[in-house]
């Protein structure tokens, strides 16, 4: 079994759940002896919205650089069955069309990066390429230098790569890779699986971007099988995208054991104050305003609490303003985007992790919190609520109940203790190897069933 996987982000560049999921799943598949050709957009500059510093390129040895310069190939030592191809592209997992536009413009205005821009491929070239192979690309890109074009240009590059590879199935993760998946499937004749980590309805509520919705819908209809990260997501796929139930399988994400209790004690940086943590993108989907409103209610009852908002996103400035307007500015800390060691540190300082997401297809961060022995409060509108029992759950809009539960964790130590003990145990049952096995079963059914 060999998989042509259209994925995202690998360590140390992980900026969210999508990258974590791709990494965890691919690694588990590799351990199970499945060969994977992993194709991902090559990060070409630091993102505009956060302050991640990419000091080193991927820890890789460039093996071959294809003659067309569309990709860099490499292997990671720990993953012996996986080959990587990083396609030069401006795509990023959590970008929005607007953000993408800003970045492209920024690039164009920076003379220093003109070379880089060339490296990712000028639009003229792409258009030329696309117009030569319209059948593979669907519509030629008419959008100019926008995200939709880039998604299709990326597809074109993926097709080129795929022609040099042998594989049995194509597995595409989230909408930006669906056109690539469709195109590679059309050229190779191999079945396509798409893996839905989130939908446009999760990201944008009812204000869906019709262009993105269209790409998602086409991907879902073109795919032989769809993998949804939760029943919640499966329901959205059935209700909103006109897919029949027999086509959609639910495969829950897993988590790698990274919590190390001995480290937890060693670091021991604890102030007298209690710390309640929000960690995630500060966007509408993640419900940051509900976190702040609950924080205000908590502070009415209890004073020695700090609320930490770790992450960045398009609502960050509004949230800073909101905290100030509510008069709790001094109690809320914004850290910006955290990664690696800083994530670990902030988890280890936290007394409670809160995920008030409005619509969360799965939610890997709560698993990580539990791994770090941090009790968890999640919204009932999250896929992960389907698999976790030893956590607190609340409707995202129920500010009063959210505050009530936050206060309970801070005031009643046995609650924290019991949640931690059972939660840490429960989270160990969610393994990537199980997720990988389920995916492999889906592949097998497809390839054997014709």
């Amino acid at each position: 079994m060999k998989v042509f996987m259209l994925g995202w982000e690998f360590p140390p560049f992980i900026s969210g759940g999508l990258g974590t999921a791709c990494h965890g799943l691919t690694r588990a598949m590799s351990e199970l002896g499945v060969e994977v050709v992993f194709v991902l957009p090559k990060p070409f500059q630091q993102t505009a919205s956060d302050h991640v510093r990419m000091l080193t390129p991927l820890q890789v040895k460039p093996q071959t650089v294809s003659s067309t310069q569309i990709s860099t190939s490499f292997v990671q030592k720990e993953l012996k069955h996986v080959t990587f191809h990083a396609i030069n592209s401006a795509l990023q997992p959590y970008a929005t069309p607007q953000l993408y536009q800003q970045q492209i413009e920024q690039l164009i205005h920076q003379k220093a990066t003109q070379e880089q821009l060339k490296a990712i491929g000028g639009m003229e070239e792409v258009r030329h390429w696309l117009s030569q192979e319209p059948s593979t690309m669907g519509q030629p890109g008419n959008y100019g230098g926008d995200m939709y074009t880039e998604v299709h240009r990326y597809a074109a590059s993926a097709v080129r790569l795929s022609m040099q590879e042998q594989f049995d199935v194509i597995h595409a993760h989230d909408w930006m890779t669906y056109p690539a998946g469709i195109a590679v499937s059309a050229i190779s004749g191999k079945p396509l699986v798409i893996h839905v980590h989130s939908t446009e309805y999760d990201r944008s509520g009812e204000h869906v971007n019709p262009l993105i919705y269209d790409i998602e819908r086409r991907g879902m209809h073109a795919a032989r099988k769809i993998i949804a990260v939760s029943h919640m997501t499966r329901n959205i796929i059935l209700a909103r995208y006109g897919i029949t139930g027999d086509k959609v399988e639910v495969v829950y994400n897993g988590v790698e054991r990274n919590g190390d209790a001995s480290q937890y004690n060693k670091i021991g940086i604890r102030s007298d104050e209690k710390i309640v943590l929000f960690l995630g993108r500060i966007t509408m989907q993640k419900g940051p305003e509900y976190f702040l409103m609950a924080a205000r209610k908590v502070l009415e009852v209890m004073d020695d609490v700090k609320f930490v908002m770790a992450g960045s996103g398009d609502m960050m400035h509004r949230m800073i303003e909101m905290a100030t307007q509510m008069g709790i500015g001094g109690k809320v800390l914004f850290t910006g985007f955290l990664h690696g060691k800083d994530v670990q540190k902030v988890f280890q300082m936290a007394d409670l992790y809160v995920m008030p997401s409005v619509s969360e297809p799965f939610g890997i961060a709560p698993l990580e919190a539990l791994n770090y022995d941090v009790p968890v409060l999640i919204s009932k509108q999250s896929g992960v609520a389907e698999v976790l029992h030893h956590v607190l759950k609340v409707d995202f809009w129920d500010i009063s109940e959210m505050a009530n539960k936050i206060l309970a964790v801070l005031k009643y130590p046995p609650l924290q203790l019991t949640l931690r003990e059972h939660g840490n145990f429960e989270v160990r049952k969610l393994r990537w190897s199980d997720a990988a096995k389920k995916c492999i079963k889906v592949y097998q059914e497809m390839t054997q069933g014709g």
Partner: protein
Amino acid sequence: MPSVCFYFQVHQPFRLRHYTIFDKTPNYFDDFRNASICRKVANKCYLPTNRLLLDVIRRYEGRFKVSFSLTGVVLEQFQQFCPEVMSTFDALAQTGCVEFLAETYYHSLSFLYSRQEFVEQVNMQMQLIQKLFGQTPRVFRNTELIYNNQLAETIESMGKFDAVITEGADHVLGHRNSNFVYRPPNCKNLKLLLKNYSLSDDIAFRFSNRQWNEYPLMANKFAAWVNRINGNGQVVNLFMDYETFGEHQWQDTGIFDFMAHLPREVLNHPDNDFRTPGEVAEAYPAMDVVDVPHIISWADTERDLSAWLGNAMQSNALHEVYRLEKLVKQTRDDQLLADWRKLQTSDHFYYMCTKYFADGDVHKYFNPYDSPYDSYINYMNVLTNLKARCEQALPGQTPPGNAAGQ
């Protein structure tokens, strides 16, 4: 010669309403939910079963007998929400074939935390039974059949009882069986009646289980099992929740028909009869001493306390509620005392049980909360308010220790 001895447990807790830390009002209980559950169970179980038993008792003219243990809190709820249930129990009491047992008024775990409170609650329940049914109980059963040697000693020292009831757990009986009357060590007169859990659970749990190889259970088959004890036992103690009839085993399982036919099938054998626990204690001598140094109960397969005291939340909540005893009693406020005592009902702690929680089983069926964590939070919020009320009622007095949970 086995005497069939039925004892039915009748209990409903005062369930708490949703109570957040922001709530300040001192009404803690969910009257609407409690009333509707009480009426629902009354219609499915208490009323039809009481009527059935009345009918059978009359038909057999004194040869069919049963016993009940009614908690004070369920009687309060009957009086408040469905008085018609009270009149059927009253009618049963009048037949002379029904014995009422003693237990703690609040179905509490007070024996484990405060002997003084325990004795007060037992006396309260006995006074209520005397007032309502004109009987003074002579046999004691502790909440959830929680028992050890010390309980027996405490009960004997009260000087009011002939016998105590508990679980016939294998690990305390060893090679012996539950079909005889026994004696606790260090007790002079008190006798011990042990539940025959196998035959009791055939009715209470397995009756409608189609996977069970004895399904369907008919009255004649069950009577044959009773007859088999002839020669190797004097009594068959069938102890179960009264809600078995119509609530746990629905009417369409045939449980009522089973019960209607059982007396005839049992009495067909000339050596068999029905006796109440008090009569059993009087009729049969204690055959041996059963030593129970560690606590047992009738719950789950463990037959221990882990359903109420299995995690840190449960032990904390129990500890905190009993720590308020002195403070609450100092206030001499009847309302505070009643509220505090209703918070001692064991069900509150059962809801906090994390055992099997993820598997979703019998524990879930009886649980008004989505999770044990929600139930603990709710309980602690109520307790925090109760404590604040006590402190308000006793200005200037700082209690020993800290606030509940703080």
